[in-house]
């Protein structure tokens, strides 16, 4: 079958000799909602730059909706919409004109583009600002303008490079809803993000990239299932002054009223509670620590787990 995105042994060495991508392979199925996770400097933006021809690759091949970006660049670009990490529109241009121009660059005449532009401006809450220069928009609005701009030519594959960085929680939810909506309508979506809960909430499949290499690649659910340990945070009824020793379990005492216990897959919470009772430690409430995906991410990118 053909994929929405197919990357083979993609390498990039920048002019200064830095090897940003060391040969990555990646496939994303049509209709997928896919996350590319990785710490700063992992090579996410470099990868996206190559897809949309802002960065020249050193070697390897890329196909967008089955079209090779070297041999079929017109069709590849026609099917791809990109929301870059940084604002790259003309700050002096009116919001609406930015969209009209981008439509024009894609060969869509103004008359054809206008109703579509109106739809996206309204849907993304920018309609009232259509005649304002883009520099007068708030950060969240600028981000949404980038999304509208990436959609005016109705691409089949939408790629967003850290779309919710710097966007407050409420607006982020709105953006999630919007992305889910267009994914349900058939647009394949790939996003890179630092908000790991975002990948967990939105994405069916995940790849983790670090130092220019893909280190994990599977469904979000499988990745989470492969997580070995969960850390439970227990609130204590009374302060204790030393970490209780529980055979086979790692414990920590961040403060006298809080105990953290790492529980491996296959181990039993009953055992933990039995041991705690034996130590006369009484637990009033309990929750899991942080985001599980975040832990996974940390364990995979920490280097020793490679």
């Amino acid at each position, binding site marked *: 079958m053909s994929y929405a995105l197919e990357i083979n042994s993609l390498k990039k060495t920048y002019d200064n000799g830095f090897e940003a991508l060391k040969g990555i392979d990646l496939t994303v199925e049509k209709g997928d909602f896919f996350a590319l996770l990785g710490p700063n400097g992992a090579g996410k933006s470099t990868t996206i730059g190559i897809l949309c021809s802002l*960065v020249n690759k050193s070697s390897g091949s890329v196909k967008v909706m089955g079209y090779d970006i070297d041999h079929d660049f*017109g069709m590849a670009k026609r099917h791809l919409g990109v929301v870059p990490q940084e604002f790259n529109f003309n700050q002096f241009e009116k919001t609406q004109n930015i969209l009209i121009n981008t439509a024009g660059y894609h060969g869509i*005449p103004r008359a054809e583009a206008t109703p579509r532009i109106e739809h996206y401006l309204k849907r993304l809450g920018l309609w009232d600002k259509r005649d304002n220069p883009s520099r007068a928009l708030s950060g969240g609005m600028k981000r949404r303008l980038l999304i509208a701009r990436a959609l005016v030519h109705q691409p089949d594959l939408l790629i967003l490079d850290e779309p919710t960085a710097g966007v407050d929680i409420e607006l982020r939810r709105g953006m999630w809803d919007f992305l889910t909506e267009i994914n349900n309508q058939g647009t394949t979506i790939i996003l890179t993000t630092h908000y790991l809960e975002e990948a967990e909430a939105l994405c069916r499949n995940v790849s983790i990239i670090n130092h220019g290499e893909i280190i994990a690649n599977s469904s979000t659910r499988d990745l989470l299932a492969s997580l070995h340990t969960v850390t439970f945070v227990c609130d204590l009824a009374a302060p204790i002054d030393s970490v209780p020793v529980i055979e086979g379990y790692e414990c920590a005492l961040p403060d006298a009223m809080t105990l953290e216990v790492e529980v491996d897959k296959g181990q039993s919470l009953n055992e933990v509670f039995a041991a705690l009772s034996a130590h006369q430690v009484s637990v009033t409430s309990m929750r899991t620590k942080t985001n599980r995906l975040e832990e996974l991410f940390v364990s995979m990118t920490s280097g020793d787990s490679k």
Partner: protein
Amino acid sequence: MSLANYEEKATDFGNPNWVAYQTIVRTEVRRFTRIWVQTMIPPAITMTLYFIIFGSLIGRRIGEMGGFDYMAYIVPGLIMMSVITNSYANVSSSFFGAKFGKFIEEMLVSPISNQTILLGYVTGGVARAVFVGIIVTILSLFFTHLAIHNILAVVSITLLTAVLFSLLGFINGVYAKRFDDVSIVPTFVLTPLTYLGGVFFSIDLLPDFWAGVAQLNPILYVVNAFRFGILGVSDISLGWAYGILISMTVVAYVIAVRLLANGAGVRS
């Protein structure tokens, strides 16, 4: 191939590159008309000063040059000077601005061909050059009488010059890394070459050696060919002028397309 394929898909609204071209031209024309105080007013003032000082005040003492009253003699060169500076400045600063503001990326990620991008910018430069050229011509009519000797030469030399210097401005814009880089060439190359290019004097006045050196200056051909169009006199053969301008334009075009294809200054 790819593009043909793409065009096939898009036939319901014609050739996409044509729409893209119109979009770039519209944006470019809007840019220089929006900032008309920076683009239209300065050449109008400078040229009016040239007309007053060199034409009226000093020109009266000089008398005739090449068989014409001095004011009439310098007007064609001054019009060309405006055409050269404005086409060059428009494309170099607009392209550099798009690079600096990163919005050049809007075009680079779109399926437009490199030649369409280039032609769009060049047309914008030509539009401004013609616009300013007309303003300066109208202003000159307050100082002298202009009879057009050969309209074909006037139009073709104006367009050829505007295209050539738009292309050179584009190449400058590609290489420019800072705003200063956009003004270096006009200040240190174009202005001196224009002064030495026979705007104010006939090269017949120069000693043989310097007259020979002057022939290496492309602006000499622009000025003289245009002066022929207006007055019917030229220091150099018209055939040579066209030959040199056309070859330079072709070379500049090839270089500019190459630079775009390699992504010089815009792709990493």
